[in-house]
């Protein structure tokens, strides 16, 4: 397995770092929050204009075909500046579902940024793609959905929702437009200040994609693509929080000493650096495996999601502790990193979910 980025991938990574660094620094996300907004449509516009909405879409449909490794480079860069983008749902999960469901005709509008997609799968407190109770029935010449989805990312700003529902033939996926009859969206004010909504359906008309009962098979690889994208974002968050903390250790003085000269802190910093290196490798390996459609791609996706979640959890906690009182203030960015991390850790499966899945896929 080659871990090294190709010249094109390295260029993409540099472009993404430069773009998010200049166009979407943490201060932009903070300003959005302070303005009471939960979605930055202008940022999404320029992100799509740069081509990042089509990073995982093939060239025939207007994308740049960078695959999951390109997604990883983009998401890691977005994570380092907490850029509030809808990339995971719109640019990663939706294209994977649409392409596999034979709806490549819809990819062009994703690549241009014209259509924003929300992925509505979960219904309870925890990620559980197998536990879907939203019903899909044929009535009046078409499919109609009844049920409720919880904490849907971009749920109230998306142009199209992809909804998982239980049809007579099994779990199936549907396209739903937000203005459809019987659909209600309740915006949520979440920890990371991004756009989420609870979405309810009451006989809501929907368009079946990929065939009745095909939902689980369509979802699994697409959700894995999303999980590895989130893992890359969490890696970026952890790298940034760690870098910020390391800077602090090298500048803050107490007792006439740089606090980074205290061995108790040096060892904790060294352990974080080690943990981050393991996560960096796991995240890269998972992206490579997904692109290669390797047999162990699903297991590596769970590995990457769980490892990155555990790393960012630890690093953000240590970041606050090592910053001391200043780390507790809203004025410091440390808390913003922690808040986004806690949401990303849960999305598409928390630590326990992926430990269990890793074991099941490993046959134990």
């Amino acid at each position, binding site marked *: 397995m080659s871990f090294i980025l190709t010249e094109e991938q390295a260029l993409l990574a540099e472009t993404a770092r430069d773009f998010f660094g200049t166009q979407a620094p943490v201060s932009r996300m903070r300003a959005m929050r302070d303005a009471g907004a939960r979605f930055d449509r202008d940022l999404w516009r320029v992100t799509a204009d740069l081509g990042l909405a089509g990073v995982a879409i093939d060239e025939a449909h207007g994308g740049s075909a960078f695959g999951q490794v390109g997604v990883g480079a983009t998401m890691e860069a977005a994570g380092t500046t907490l850029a509030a983008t809808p990339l995971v749902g719109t640019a990663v999960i939706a294209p994977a579902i649409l392409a596999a469901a034979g709806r490549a005709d819809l990819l062009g509008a994703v690549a241009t940024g014209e259509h924003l997609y929300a992925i509505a799968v979960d219904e309870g407190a925890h990620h559980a793609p197998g536990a879907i109770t939203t019903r899909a029935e044929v009535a009046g010449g078409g499919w109609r959905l009844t049920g409720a989805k919880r904490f849907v990312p971009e749920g109230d700003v998306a142009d199209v929702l992809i909804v998982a529902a239980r049809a007579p033939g099994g779990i199936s996926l549907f396209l739903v437009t937000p203005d459809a009859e019987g659909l209600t969206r309740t915006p949520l004010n979440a920890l990371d200040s991004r756009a989420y909504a609870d979405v309810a359906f009451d006989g809501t008309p929907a368009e079946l994609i990929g065939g009745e009962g095909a939902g689980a098979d369509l979802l699994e690889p697409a959700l894995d693509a999303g999980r590895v994208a989130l893992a890359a974002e969490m890696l970026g968050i952890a790298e940034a929080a760690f870098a910020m903390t390391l800077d602090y250790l090298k500048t803050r003085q107490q007792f006439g000493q740089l606090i980074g000269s205290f061995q108790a802190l040096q060892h904790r910093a*060294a352990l974080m650096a080690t943990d981050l290196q393991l996560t960096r490798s796991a995240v*890269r390996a998972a992206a490579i495996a997904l692109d290669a459609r390797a047999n162990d791609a699903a297991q590596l996706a769970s590995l990457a999601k769980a490892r990155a979640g555990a790393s960012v959890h630890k690093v953000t906690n240590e970041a606050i502790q090592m910053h001391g009182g200043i780390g507790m203030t809203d004025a410091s960015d440390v808390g913003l990193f922690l808040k986004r991390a806690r949401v990303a850790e849960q999305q598409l499966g928390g630590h326990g979910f992926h430990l269990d899945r890793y074991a099941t896929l490993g046959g134990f």
Partner: protein
Amino acid sequence: MADIDSFRAETRAWLEANAPASIRTPQPEGEVAWGGRRAEWANPESKLWLERMAAKGWTVPTWAPEYGGAGLGAAEAAVLAEELKRIGARPAHLNFGIWMLGPVLQKYGTEDQKRRFLPPIARGEIRWCQGYSEPGSGSDLASLRTSCVADGDHWVINGQKVWTSYADQADWMFCLVRTDAAAPKHEGISFILFDMDTRGVETRPIPLISGASPFCETFLTDVRVPIDQMVGAPGKGWEIAKALLAHERANISAEGFARGDGIGLIEAARHGAPGPGGRIGDPNLRLRVAEQAMAQQSFGLTLRHLQQERPPYQADALASMAKSAAAELNKARLELTVEALGVDGLGWDGPGFAPAGLQATRTMLRSKGNSIEGGTTEINLNVLAKRGLGLRDHQ
């Protein structure tokens, strides 16, 4: 590319013709090819394999031919390693000379020393041991006190070394000594080589919490060593000592610690807590096994990753990172393995316990030393913090 392809084809053909069948099977403990003057060959094909590989220069493929190597570049050496792995070949021999002494001798030795010592290392004719730690000098290795004074055309050594692995089986020792007791501690140290058969060298094995061990105490009493066996100038040994330690740590982390778990972690958990269809029956244990397996897999990925792409750390910081991570993972895995075995992991020896469980338990006990030997985890974290992360010393 064509060159590397043809090298691969030639290598594959040569291995096909020259690798004896038995060396393509997993190596039992008793057949480790240590080489040396006292070599015992439980399997005659191991000896043949060493001789054939040494004749090709492939026991040390990247060393120059005049020093017993094959002068291969990194790409060719990688191909050779892959092809050896492909057929499941056992190492031609294991020798501290190859991965610890050899590299520093090439950098710091005189031409005469290189020609004298490197080819026998390559051929597995001399088994080396490492004389570093002393009873009063563990982590603070540079405080070592074994004295070395000039007497005509000889050096005379007096002192005691400890944790000398296989000192009782080794032919020669590379040893740290103090040639200047008055100099600052890092500046009075020298690096010297001597034959273990020299008068005044005595060794005594050290039993560990895990039972018998290869570790020894080595007593040095008026040991007379020819003057040309010092590597580097007197008082300049600390730099060599550190370079050798970096090779040691890099190798430990790359190769991992000796496994010998006896039983794999997942298998142990299935045995101790059987569930339906190969599933681990205890849900708490199952998730802890998964977490450990994830850490283990990530570490394996990191080792491959670091061969290709490195964070901007000093090489020794990276070696310290990998070594300490390997040690802590090994300890955690073995503890969990023994816990998973339940009372079947609580035997010391004798009937009533399966050999695999007994071995896992002994290896668990032995693994406690992984984070002590080759630099403690604490020392390695110091190195990583300072040389990797740029954190400063306390003023």
